[in-house]
Structure formats: C-alpha cells, structure tokens
C-alpha cells in the first residue's frame, strides 16, 4: 500500500480515531473587540479533507474566525479543537495549520526560495530534505526557476503562488486561506480557482477558504458556511445552500434575491410568510397562457431588460406588488428580440416545487417599498 505524497498520516493505524475526528471543531466561539462583537457564537465541524468555504459579506466575522483557528486571536468564549485536540490556548507556531494571507505577507527581504523554505528552516529540517521539499512545493505552484527572485519582482498572481507554496511545504493538516484570490483580476482568479481545487485534491488536506464571492464559494467548495453578523446562518453543500436557502439572508446573498412576501405571497402563493424562487426556474409566458395545477403564476410587466451575452435578465414588476428577476438563456433569441420585450405585460410561471419558504424575512425593506410602487 503506497500513500500518495503529501498525505501525512496515511497508513498509521494508531491515528485512525484521530482521522475520523473532524479536522476543526468550533464550539460556541465568541470574539469581542471592546464593544464590537466580531464573532457572536459560532458552532462548526469541518471534516478532514474537506474544501470548506466561509462565505459572507464584509464585516461578518470570517477573517476573525479564521484568525482564531490560526491562533492569532484568542477567543473571548468557546473552544477550538484541531483533530479532536483542544488548541484554544496554543500559540500559532505550535498549531498544525498554515495560512495563506490575503495580502500574501511574503518576506520582502528574502528570495522566493527562502520564503518557501522558511517553515522548514525554522523547524531545522535537514538541508537535503529542505531543498527537495522546497523544489516540490515550487513545482506544485508552477514556479520552478523563480527561486532567486524577490517578492517585489513578481506579479500579483505569482506572489499568490509563493504564499501558497510557502504554506503547503510544511504539509499542514489544515490550510487556511483568507480571500487568497481577492487581489487578482477576474480571468486569473478563475484559473486559480481551478488550480487551487486541483492542488487540494493532490495534497488531500483540509482547506478552509474565506471569501465574500458567492460564485467562488459555489464553484470550489464541498461545503459552505454562510456568515452574517458574526453568526452562521446556514451550513451545507453548494447545492443545498443555493437550492434550499434557510433564511432570507442566505437566499439573497447566495444567488439573486427573488423574494415574495406579505401581500404578494398571499395573492400569488396563497400563503403567509417569505418565499423565494430562483430566477432561472421562472418562465415568461403571455398573460393568457394556461397554468398547470402544479404551477404558480403571476402577472406583471417587464420593467427592465439586461442583456448579458449568454443570458438575458428580465426584471418584472408584479401586479401583486414587488419584483421578480427572471434569467433566460439566449438559446434562439437575439439581443434585439430580448431588448424589445421591455414594457411588455407577461405571465410568470414556475413549478410549485421551486418555491422555498424562508425564515426571518418579514422585515426586508426592499419588499415593503416594492409593494407600494
């Protein structure tokens, strides 16, 4: 039996129970900075080998949570367990996790090679092993031949790779990444997303990935935790979170918010509460179109048409109040035809099974305004 390279504990029978323990366990984690509640009670289990994303808007406590896992911040309350072991009071240098920082935090006075070898150097790794592992790490991020350069002589994408190699060379069991692609342009970011995912597959360690970009989280993750105001609103697979959002916040933050509440919900769905329908599940028909028994429908007028190349987005003002966004692929329609739809009176139709009930949606301000216009 040969373990793939970089799988640190494969084949050690003693470690079996530890391997089955979650990679990271957060127990009622709280962090207060003076008056500010950065993290207000997070419970979470992250499985070994998982690509786990923490998704949320700015200021929702993602970075603070990550920094507590790394050991840079001490929790105000709660416990942190790494592979079943309590590390709440353990300093960063004694934790088996490594971090890729948002600003990369490369050492400016060292070469790329010295940067990558740093973790091995401070742990007094024998010279030969240090050299070969450094080479391996640089090869993994496709930076062979850059050893002698300084960070200042690299592009943003290359610096990002150095930061990644510098963390991975230590073969941590958990890698923390704080918006590592935030500073890159869209094209490079999409390339790096695929590459990061591949690297994670190769090394087989747990990745905890902080981002505020929902597409990024959906593309890359095995599971996602959606953060809002220092709390987790939902944890689940990308499909779970996207198709079955539990709260108004998750529905609007992950994907386009398409909420039906108050009068609109009663009129159209015949139910009280707040509901959502994903834009791509809605079809646009003529007002006189018939509706099947397993379908809902609503009359409205196309207020705005946004042509997006592959898709077109229609914003429809409902007669019952509020708005719904509908996206349709431009299979046959030309941009001319799509744009000509503006102002048209239409019937929106969707299947009942695509309507999702949400928690905590009655106070959404956008709805109240929408109902009046």
């Amino acid at each position, binding site marked *: 039996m040969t373990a793939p390279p970089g799988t640190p504990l494969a084949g050690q029978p003693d470690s079996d129970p530890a391997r089955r323990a979650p990679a990271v366990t957060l127990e009622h984690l709280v962090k207060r900075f003076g008056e500010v509640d950065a993290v207000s009670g997070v419970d979470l289990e992250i499985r070994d080998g998982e690509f786990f994303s923490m998704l949320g808007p700015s200021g929702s406590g993602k970075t603070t949570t990550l920094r507590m896992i*790394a*050991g*840079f911040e001490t929790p105000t309350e709660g416990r942190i367990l790494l592979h079943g072991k309590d590390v709440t009071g353990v*300093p*960063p*240098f004694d934790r088996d*996790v*490594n*971090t890729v*920082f948002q*600003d990369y*935090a*490369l*050492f*400016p*006075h060292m070469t790329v090679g010295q940067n990558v070898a*740093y*973790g091995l150097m*401070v*742990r007094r790794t024998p010279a030969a092993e240090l050299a070969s592992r450094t080479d391996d790490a640089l090869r993994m991020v496709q930076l062979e031949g850059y050893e002698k350069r300084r960070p200042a002589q690299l592009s943003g994408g290359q610096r990002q790779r150095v930061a990644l190699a*510098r*963390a991975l060379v*230590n073969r941590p069991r958990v890698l923390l990444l704080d918006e590592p692609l935030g500073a890159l342009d869209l094209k490079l970011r999409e390339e790096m997303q695929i590459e990061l995912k591949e690297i994670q597959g190769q090394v087989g360690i747990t990745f905890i990935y902080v981002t505020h970009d929902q597409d990024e989280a959906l593309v890359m993750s095995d599971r996602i935790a959606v953060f809002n105001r220092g709390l987790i609103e939902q944890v689940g697979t990308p499909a779970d979170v996207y198709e079955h959002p539990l709260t108004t916040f998750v529905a609007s933050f992950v994907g386009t918010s398409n909420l039906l509440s108050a009068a609109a919900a009663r009129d159209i769905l015949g139910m009280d509460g707040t509901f959502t329908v994903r834009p791509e599940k809605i079809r646009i028909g003529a007002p006189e179109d018939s509706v099947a028994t397993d379908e809902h429908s609503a009359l409205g007028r196309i207020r705005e048409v946004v042509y997006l190349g592959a898709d077109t987005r229609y914003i429809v003002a409902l007669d019952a109040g509020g708005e719904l966004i509908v996206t349709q692929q431009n299979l046959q329609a030309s941009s001319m035809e799509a744009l000509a739809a503006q102002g048209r009176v239409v019937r929106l139709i969707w299947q009942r099974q695509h309507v999702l009930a949400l928690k905590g949606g009655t106070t959404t301000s956008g709805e109240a305004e929408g109902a009046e216009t």
Partner: protein
Amino acid sequence: MTESPFVRVLLRVGTWLVLGFLYLPLVILAVYAFNESRALAWPPPGLTLHWFGEAAANPAVRAAFLNSIIAGSAATAIALVLGTLASLAVQRFAFFGRDTIAFALVLPIALPGVITGIALQTTFKTMGLNFGLMTIIIGHATFCVVIAYNNVVARLRRLPRTPEEASADLGADSWMTFRHITLPGMGTALLSGGLLSFALSFDEIIVTLFTAGAGTQTIPIWIFASIQRPTELPVVNVVALVLLLLSVIPVYLAQRIAGETAGVTR
C-alpha cells in the same frame, strides 16, 4: 505661483543671505585649517597642510580623538540595544501606562543639557563612580537612546504586521520571528539611528563637561580647552574641521538611508 519679479528677486537674495549666514563661518574655519600663518589674517598669506601633520602628532589630540570614537561607538551600541527594546515594547505590546511611557521616553530630548549633565554628575557621585570614559559613555547613551528609539519606533509603526504573523504561522517562535523578520525589517532604521547618535555623541560638549572628570578629554572638550592658547590655534582649526566632517557625514548618510527606504516601502 505668480509673484512679481521684484518679490522673486527678494526671495532669492533672502535665501542666499540665509545660506551665507549659515555656511560662511564654516568656510572660514575650513580655510584657516590650511592657513600658513599662526595668526588669523584674511586672506591667509599662503596655504599649507603642515598643521594636519602637527595635529596628528599631538598626543593630547590623539587621546581625545580615541576617547571620542570609543565614547561614540559605545554609547551608540548601548542606545541601539535599549532603544530597540523600548520601541518593541511600546509598539508591539499593549500594557498599562504604555502611552505615558512612550512620552517619557522622548521627553529627555527637551531637557537642557545642563540639567542632564548635573543630574548625571550628582548620581555618579552618589554612586561613588570614578569619572572617566565610562561615565562619559553612560552620559552620552542617555540622549543617544532617544534618537535610536525614535528611529526604530517610526519604522516599526510603518512595518506591516502580517509578515510577523506569517512567520509565527510557519512555526517560528517569538525570538526566531524577531531575528529573521522584524530585525531585518528594522535594519536601515537601526543604521540611520546609529549614525545619528554617533554624530550626536561625537560633538557633544555640555553633558561631557559634567561627566568627564579631570583626566579625560573628548575632541570637543579638547577644542574648548585649547582655544584660549594662541599657540594651539592652527591645530584647533584643523581638529575643528575634522570634527565638522565627522559629525556632518553620518547625518548626511542617515538622511540618505532614511530617504531610500521610505521610497522602497511605498
């Protein structure tokens, strides 16, 4: 800017007057160092390098010069170590009374030299110390430490924290992080702080007068003592010129270093 030609001329003349006022005495001093005659006469009757040889051969000058070098180096070394420790404490750790301590650390720079001098003298006497090179070094270190502290603390304020965190994250304990990351980051600040405090020590006279005791002379003290003796005048001029260069050059270098790194970090 749209000054009238008259204002422009006036400003230009004013600038030259100020520069002349600042630098003419120095030029005169420099020229007299090459004066053939023992007496001060303008213009000098002829130029010579004779007095440089004389100064170099003068045992009192040589002893004073050596003392100045030792005092400057030792005071600078002490200042760099203590100044760095103090700035790290103030800049990297939060503790009760930190702001007060930060203020107390730079306050002595506003103290008149006479006060520092007499306070040190009284203290040394109370402790029963022998006055000499050792007491000069301690005296100089008191103001050099402020310079070193100021330089380092300004740098620490600008240095980003994340590389230090990255270092800890990669397994380095506090000491290794300091040695491999923080210290190299402070490098040029230490160098410019060191040069400035050396220059400051090298031409210091007031504190030195109070802490030197009878037998020990530094270069400024030797000049001060010899200026009354007309026979020594040509040698005094030479020594003064050397002192001038040795205190200006480090300040110039320190400026250059500080300027360069400011450019790099941006």
